[in-house]
């Protein structure tokens, strides 16, 4: 009975978080799929050991997992190395909003941008990351300036909602 429950916990963790962890691990390992899989496996195992990750809201669970994955990647963790066993399974800090783990928070914001519609994302990329004015973005996109304003208006609110779901607050 217990074995089934333990398998079920790991399956649930995988179902819920593996895809997001995979993207992050690929980023952390600069696209090294072998290392990325190691990072994801080890992260899922630690989550499984600590047990209560699934009880957290989806947002804070994601931040927890990303924090663990990042540490594993940075520690140069290698498959089946002893070092991973030295680290305790204690959950890291759950809050990411205090700036203690900016890198993880930055990733969560990037991920949130990735979840927006193409139109919302492109207008934010132009107007924020590439520094376009509303007028320049309108030319670039072939739409009216008023359309750029209303798209940024809705896009930033959509982003804010996604971030709240991920537990990222300002």
């Amino acid at each position, binding site marked *: 009975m217990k*074995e089934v429950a333990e398998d079920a916990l790991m399956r649930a963790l995988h179902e819920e978080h593996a895809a997001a962890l995979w993207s992050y691990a690929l980023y952390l390992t600069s696209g090294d799929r072998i290392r990325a899989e190691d990072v994801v*496996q080890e992260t899922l195992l630690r989550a499984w050991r600590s047990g209560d990750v699934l009880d957290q809201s989806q947002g804070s669970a994601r931040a927890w997992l990303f924090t663990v994955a990042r540490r594993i990647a940075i520690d140069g963790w290698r498959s089946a190395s002893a070092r991973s066993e030295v680290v305790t399974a204690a959950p890291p800090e759950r809050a990411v909003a205090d700036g203690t783990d900016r890198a993880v928070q930055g*990733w969560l914001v990037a991920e949130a941008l*990735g979840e927006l519609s193409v139109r919302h994302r492109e207008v*934010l990329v132009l107007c924020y990351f590439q520094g376009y004015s509303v007028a320049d973005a309108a030319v670039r996109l072939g739409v009216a300036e*008023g359309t750029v304003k209303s798209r*940024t*208006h809705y896009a930033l609110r959509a982003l804010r909602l996604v971030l709240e779901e991920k537990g990222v607050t*300002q």
Partner: protein
Amino acid sequence: MTVNDPFITYDAAYVLGALSPEERADYEKHLRDCDACASAVRELAGMPGLLAQVDPPVSGFPQAGQPPQELLPDVLRRVRRGRRLRNAITATSAGVAVAACVALGVVAALPAPTSPPAPPSTAMTLLGQFPVQAAARLVQEDWGTQVDMSCSYDAGETRESHEGRDYVLVVVGRDGTVANLATWLALPSNTARIVVGTTMKPADIQALEIRSTKGTPLLRLSLS
């Protein structure tokens, strides 16, 4: 802000810094009189700070990709491996490996309690042809490190199979120090589990070794 407020959608472009200087001036003048727009700006005021934490996208933003298909089976195998080890330890009869405990160690050579589940251990590396295998894990504690080791001895059908053997668990520090953590008598076909503490921090530990009483290293777990 009325339904026809021409400034109703300016808030985001404003906080992103994308308005032209003229529009910006007009909007800021409007904000002094329009609570709704001012409140809309306050809602979005933190967003540029969050966006600033993102590395400028080079190849687009992450889209959740499909992890490799073998990921789930692999990780389930690791879950089961850890479980088997725990079961083996729990099934071992008590009192097999009551140890002579040294100085700072506390030895609990008992079947594992049923909870909490211990993380899987790492197999120690055999340093020769010895009829023994062991696995250990280290857990950092406030006071140092807890070492949790299980060791089984299987002499097979040799003439030694009815004798026990004395083993020593030692910790080797990065500074070269060697400390005995525990000694025990290993009996054939049984598993000893030893939980022992050391004041050394995990980072200061280079290796764990199981040695014979003559000092010959039999198994080793390197920590780097």
